[in-house]
């Protein structure tokens, strides 16, 4: 018993002891440990460019910060552990992180006075804690940082990554190359005061005592040669003021596997660099080489000493720079692109360095400028594979081959395509940047944010079809339609792929908006638009078929007002009244009489106003003449009073002019100007003509108001007439007798007098039945109307059934109606009939953003409505139904 107890205790201690170190270790490592290496991520993208090849529909498996596998996702799933996280990237283009082969990201502008400072390390000047988001936004994951830029040998470069929390891990190479800058700009090192200056006086002036190196290329090369010689022979004398430790550094870079980075702007510099390299068996990276033509025949031999060349693009991204005028007979300077071509042909890797660090964010764009002489793969290699190779990091970064560090960039599309954007950047498998939540200065945003729609086809409604079209919607308005419209990069894009965008449909007769069948009668004075319900569930259903606007009227024997409105949640009235609706039914003799009476009184009213308007216009003209005349007359004393009176009069006609717009309000004042106008007539002056009289304003009758628009031709009469006799009567009365724009509603028998209708400019609203069988004859009304040249639109005479209007028309199309005719009957024709074509009916800049996204061509069997937009707002989308 005792024994076992003891045993248990000891065991417990052993267990504790075993646990403790592990726990301690975990605690100490907790803050530092990398993301657990077991994590596996799978990225699936439409295109993966590994740096060597392009994989369509590829996958990339990342494990422990490294690329584990990359391949094509044909019909089989790649094998990855069950716990792996799969990231579908859709249409994205995935490529290795970009590498800038030279930057000045270490401190600059504070170079040493000494011209040779090989001990200086650029890494010491690189701030790991600066925000490199602009670079990351440009997809740059790895940069070389160069030491000073103004001395002959400013020090050693380093290669670092642009993000990551641990500086140690971010440092890919702490001593990458030894930098030498030839070229006249770097030769004139400052002179050094040595020994230190004592007292300055007349006899002992302040004098620089010691030039560092000569300023000619010859003396610079000689100085370098001496340095390399001394470094290569331990024990020799120290040349110039180079210290032992400086020589140690130089000696280090003369070893195999190490590189000297040498900037050679002229042919002579290049020659000198190559000569030094051959003499001391150095490996060179040539930066900014001059003209390559003198080396045309020897370029192939460069491979022994030159491990790569870094070129600077001739231009900055988006900047305009002056070009020097060449000398008469001087050869045309070689472009950077030509140099790249030559070097690649000679088998020498080429990488890029932007002109300024500020351009690092546009590195990919700069690479694209080499497309004039390089292939896409070659251009991309300049900022990936080649750059990695010449930095000596070809086995770590620059490609997405298995085993490489998982540094990659996710682009929204092909890298050199317009509008392609860098969406995400990964370094060692970790997401270090994503455009969605970047903390960067944003492009000035217009509010609300515009939205870009893309589709396979856009039917603009005016007969045009735009293939691979784009549309920019801003607020409630279309701002652009075309193959490539202007839109800021950050504006959300809705790419509908194979979809077709058409204008929103118009239903010329719906029973929507009042929440059910209207009770009682309405007079023409009724503004139906004021009775529309907001957030009507019927409306929400109705618009799912693609109908965005409807006409609403009251079915009654007498004339009824008609309102046109949009099926948005808060119904937007397009025009109220949009038309007057009449009905020809029942006893035609009676009906004819009633209609004629109504029209007659309407016409009388309208004519009275027209007359008044005409008279008033004349009056205004005369009054102006009169006033002008009066102003010319010398003001005589007895008439002193009159000008005063006139003044008041002068005002009044003005007021009247404004009154006309709102006549109903000003009625009581009507008489005054008339009285006033008689006053001056009493005492006419000798030379003044009688003052003109203001015409009498007719009484305003609200019930008759719509007739003014009707007779002015500003709105049509919608005349419901179905049978032939009804149609004939309607045409007689409306067209022949009263000559108003006439749209027949229903018009089932219209085909029987189609020629007459066409002649008399009568349009038709067909529906809700489009194809009928009468007396064993099938009548396809829209088809007949189309062939007869009679404009026609459609109506559903339904509430929620409005959504089926387009599908009902599909049947009509199947039975022979042209799809284009059917579409214009749903879009442009209604807009024209109602005089709304300034706003709706077509998809064009400046028009209302009412549109329907269809999965295929309109009226195709398989076509469904994907989404509906009214006034720039999505009011329905297929996802809603799910």
């Amino acid at each position: 018993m005792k024994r076992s107890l003891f045993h248990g205790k000891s065991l417990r201690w052993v267990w504790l002891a075993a646990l403790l170190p592990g726990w301690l270790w975990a605690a100490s490592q907790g803050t530092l440990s990398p993301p657990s290496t077991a994590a596996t991520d799978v990225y699936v993208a439409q295109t993966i460019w590994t740096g060597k090849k392009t994989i369509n529909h590829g996958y990339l498996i990342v494990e422990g910060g490294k690329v584990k596998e990359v391949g094509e996702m044909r019909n089989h799933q790649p094998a990855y552990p069950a716990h792996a996280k799969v990231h579908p990237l859709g249409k994205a283009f995935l490529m290795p992180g970009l590498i800038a082969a030279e930057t000045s990201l270490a401190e600059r502008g504070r170079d040493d006075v000494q011209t040779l400072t090989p001990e200086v390390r650029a890494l010491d000047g690189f701030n790991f804690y600066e925000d490199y988001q602009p670079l990351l936004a440009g997809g740059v994951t790895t940069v070389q940082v160069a030491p000073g830029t103004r001395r002959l040998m400013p020090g050693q470069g380093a290669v670092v990554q642009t993000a990551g929390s641990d500086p140690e891990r971010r440092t890919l190479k702490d001593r990458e190359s030894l930098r030498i800058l030839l070229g006249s700009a770097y030769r004139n090192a400052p002179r050094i005061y040595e020994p230190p200056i004592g007292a300055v006086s007349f006899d002992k002036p302040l004098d620089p005592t010691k030039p560092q190196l000569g300023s000619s290329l010859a003396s610079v090369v000689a100085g370098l040669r001496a340095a390399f010689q001394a470094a290569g022979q331990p024990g020799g004398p120290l040349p110039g003021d180079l210290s032992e430790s400086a020589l140690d550094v130089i000696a280090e870079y003369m070893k195999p596997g190490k590189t000297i980075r040498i900037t050679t702007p002229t042919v002579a510099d290049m020659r000198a660099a190559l000569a030094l390299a051959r003499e001391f068996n150095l490996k060179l990276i040539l930066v900014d080489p001059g003209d390559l033509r003198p080396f045309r025949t020897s370029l192939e031999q460069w491979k022994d000493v030159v491990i790569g060349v870094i070129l600077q693009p001739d231009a900055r991204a988006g900047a305009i720079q002056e070009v020097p005028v060449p000398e008469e007979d001087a050869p045309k300077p070689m472009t950077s692109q030509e140099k790249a071509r030559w070097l690649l042909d000679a088998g020498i890797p080429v990488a890029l360095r932007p002109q300024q660090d500020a351009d690092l964010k546009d590195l990919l764009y700069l690479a694209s400028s080499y497309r004039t002489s390089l292939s896409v793969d070659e251009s991309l290699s300049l900022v990936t594979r080649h750059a990695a190779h010449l930095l000596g990091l070809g086995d770590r970064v620059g490609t997405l081959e298995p085993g490489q560090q998982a540094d990659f960039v996710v682009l929204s599309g092909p890298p050199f395509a317009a509008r392609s954007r860098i969406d995400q950047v990964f370094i060692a498998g970790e997401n270090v940047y994503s455009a969605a939540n970047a903390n960067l200065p944003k492009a000035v945003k217009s509010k609300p944010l515009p939205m870009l729609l893309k589709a396979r086809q856009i039917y603009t409604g005016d007969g045009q079809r735009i293939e691979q079209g784009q549309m920019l919607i801003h607020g409630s308005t279309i701002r652009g339609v075309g193959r490539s419209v202007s839109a800021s990069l950050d504006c959300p894009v809705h790419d509908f792929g194979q979809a077709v965008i058409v204008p929103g449909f118009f239903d010329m007769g719906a029973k929507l908006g009042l929440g059910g069948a209207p009770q009682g009668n309405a007079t023409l004075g009724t503004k139906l638009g004021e009775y529309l319900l907001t957030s009507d569930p019927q409306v929400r259903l109705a618009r799912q078929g693609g109908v965005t606007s409807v006409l609403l009227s009251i079915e009654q024997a007498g004339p009824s007002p008609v309102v046109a409105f949009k099926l948005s949640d808060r119904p937007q009235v397009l025009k109220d009244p949009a038309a007057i609706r009449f009905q020809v039914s029942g006893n035609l003799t009676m009906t004819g009489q009633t209609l004629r009476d109504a029209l007659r009184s309407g016409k009388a009213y309208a004519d009275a106003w027209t007359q008044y308007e005409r008279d008033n216009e004349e009056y205004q003209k005369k009054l102006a003449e009169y006033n002008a005349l009066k102003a010319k007359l010398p003001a005589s004393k007895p008439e002193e009073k009159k000008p005063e009176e006139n003044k008041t009069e002068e005002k009044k006609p003005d007021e009247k002019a404004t009154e006309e717009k709102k006549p109903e309000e000003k009625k009581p004042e009507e008489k005054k100007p008339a009285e006033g106008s008689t006053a001056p007539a009493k005492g006419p002056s000798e030379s003044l003509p009688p003052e003109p009289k203001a015409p009498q304003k007719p009484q305003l009758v609200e019930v008759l108001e719509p007739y003014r628009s009707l007779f002015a031709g500003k709105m049509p009469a919608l005349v419901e007439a179905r049978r032939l006799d009804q149609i004939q009567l309607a045409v007689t009365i409306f067209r022949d007798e009263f000559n108003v724009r006439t749209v027949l509603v229903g018009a089932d028998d219209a085909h029987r007098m189609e020629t007459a209708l066409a002649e008399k400019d009568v349009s038709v609203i067909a529906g809700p039945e489009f194809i009928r069988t009468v007396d064993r004859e099938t009548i396809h009304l829209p088809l007949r109307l189309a062939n007869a040249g009679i404009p026609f639109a459609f109506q559903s005479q339904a509430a929620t059934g409005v959504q089926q209007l387009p599908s009902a028309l599909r049947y009509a199309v199947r039975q022979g109606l042209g799809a284009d005719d059917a579409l214009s009957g749903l879009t442009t024709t209604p807009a024209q009939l109602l005089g709304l074509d300034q706003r709706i009916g077509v998809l064009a800049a400046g028009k209302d953003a009412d549109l329907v996204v269809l999965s295929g061509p309109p009226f195709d069997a398989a076509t469904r409505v994907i989404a509906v937009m009214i006034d720039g707002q999505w009011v329905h989308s297929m996802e809603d139904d799910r």
Partner: protein
Amino acid sequence: MMRRRIHVHVLGWVLLAGWGMTSAPVAAQESLALRGGKIIPMSGPALEEGVILIRNGKIEAIGKDVAIPPDVKVIDAKGKVIMPGFIEAHSSRGMDQTNETNPNTPFLSVIDGIDPSQEYFDECRRNGVTTVAIFPGNNTMFGGQGAIVKTAGVTVNDMILKRGAGIKISLKPTAERSRMSHMAALRKELDAARIFLEEEKAKSSPKPTAASSDASREPKDDDGSTTNGFQRPPRGQRGTAPRPDAGNVDAAQVRAALASLLKGELLAFIYCELAMDVPQALRLTKEYGLKSVLVLDRDCYKAAKLVAASGLPVILEPTLVFWETQPQTGEDQQIILPEVYREHKIPVALQVTGIGSGNLFRQPNLPPTLGTNFLWYQAATLVKYGASEEEALDTITRRAAQAVGADKLVGTLEAGKDADLIILSGDPLKIDTWVEKTIVNGQVVYDREQDRKLKGLLQSDAKK
């Protein structure tokens, strides 16, 4: 009028203080007992109504039932709080000049520059600071050697607790230099010292070979990764070590000082101005096997993760809370250093603002931001941002002693330690608490009753 009167006060006080000190018996190790009150020893739980017995400048006993011998002078501290004197882990005051203009003076010692009569020490005693680690300022590459001193004494020699506390290294480049050449110069000096050390060793050992000395120089833990120092090719034939970049300074002295740094005899107090200096400091620490203490300026919070991983002692700069503008978005952001360092579980030590607490009297028109002039205020700031009171007090006593390597002598109230303690009128972190008495090495060096300067200040205020 007012100001003039204060000046007169100050003058008088300084004179008086000087007199007082010279007249104080330097070695008279009288015994002292503190009785009653709450004792916060910082080495264990607080004692209510305890007794502390002090003999020969040391704490002889501390506890509830310590018998007080009859020959001992007793201070009654009933209702008061007794705790160890505060320790400022890093300060560049008390000297005639903060920074040396020559960038390369590792052989200098602050002891030669400390002036015990400076008002600074006066202020220290008034505010309960009994020990200060004085180091050269932050602007000199190798600024010199710091020392840990008590804040009371007639001559510097009376004050010294530890002579060579460490060498101050600043990673902030001097004048027109870039960080790169600053680091290159730093390395050059350290390399020279390393070679010097090897040569010394070679002289003493019988058969020196270049290879063996190389091996002994490079620590075994070097894993040979590219980020570590590359091996210098043996260049033994050329013989002498390179001259250091010392200007008109004696090169041998520089080398000797840096050699003791490399040998680990001196701590390296590395000042990091920016976060980017932190990895450099760690790299130097690793490459040269230094025993480092990090003196971190405000920007260094960005490298907190690295600091935490290094496990090195950290001394924060006085401004603990400040505003920063995000470069990309232009948004202002408040940075609270105590929170950042707590998050990373980094124990920090504190210092107070460099302006000098004397400002309270010297410049009455100074803005009312004097809080950071006081160690207790700094500790209270820690409490404000989430630390416990014990932890905050620990920071300015025991932990500070540990950071500067003086924890065997000061920092807590334990038998055998230096009798450096303060008697407070109340809770140590309360704003209305006064330091009643400050005792250094068993001597009462400050007594509020006798503080005519303070009284004068308060009185003249009252007259207004």
